[in-house]
């Protein structure tokens, strides 16, 4: 106690031992996908502003709607929408993976790797399919 007080009065910092955290582990797919699940969730959280903007513009009138269409059709808008599509599908598939895990299934090493890989590949594939359909069938945004 005296030692601690002495250190406090001299203003010295005692380097305390820290418990091991994320950085000591070898990055694994399941771990990365866990982080990505949270990141996509956060991105989707703020992305709800886009949905709100689109709906409010549609309710406001042709001029407001034209502004949204112009932004969504621009390069930046398209990149955001593409990222948003992937984040949404990845978060959804990741959520299904977690729901499977909630039933105490799929925890064997090979199974959890497979589920995690399926989430990643599935989300990329679905995003591409959706955008191909969007552009080829629906003609994309105008």
């Amino acid at each position, binding site marked *: 106690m005296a030692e601690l007080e002495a250190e406090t009065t001299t203003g010295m910092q005692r380097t305390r031992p820290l418990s091991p955290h994320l950085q000591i582990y070898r990055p694994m797919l399941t771990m990365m996908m866990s982080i990505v699940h*949270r990141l996509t*969730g*956060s991105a*989707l*959280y703020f992305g*709800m*502003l886009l*949905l*709100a903007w689109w*709906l*409010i513009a*549609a*309710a406001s*009138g*042709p001029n407001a*709607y*034209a502004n949204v269409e112009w932004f969504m059709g621009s390069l930046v808008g398209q990149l955001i929408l593409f990222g948003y*599509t992937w984040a*949404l599908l990845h978060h*959804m598939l990741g*959520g*299904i993976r*977690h*729901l499977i895990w*909630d039933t105490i299934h799929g925890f064997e090493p090979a199974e959890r790797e497979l589920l995690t890989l399926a989430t990643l590949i599935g989300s990329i594939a679905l995003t591409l399919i*959706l955008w191909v*359909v*969007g552009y080829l069938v*629906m*003609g*994309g*945004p*105008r």
Partner: protein
Amino acid sequence: MTVSQPMHTPLRRVRGLGSARSGTSHFWYQRVTSVAGIPLTAGLLVIITALLGRSHAAVVQILGSPIVAIVMLLFIINTAHHMWIGMQEIILDYVHDDRWKLLSLMANTFFVFGVSLASIYAILKLSFGV
């Protein structure tokens, strides 16, 4: 032998509160909203894809039609609950300073209510055409 001392902290005695028996409610509702979110997200994607490139008048008509509006409303209400729990969990994990924690927890609620209510209002306006 003395009467066993229950695990009541002084704070608990002061407040006169025991367990609210709601410790797992957020866990549960995060699952409920994620299950509901699967078909609703599929519905949202179908609706948005179907509206690509259409004129404002057509978009207004389709978004205001009952089935589409109901799916959109369900998606927004369900997502609002889901994102509120999710962001609260993130805040509680990473924000340790009490002031910032309380402020960000409040901001989370304000954001979710603001964004979802604005979206709901827009859909209702499109539906009832006032």
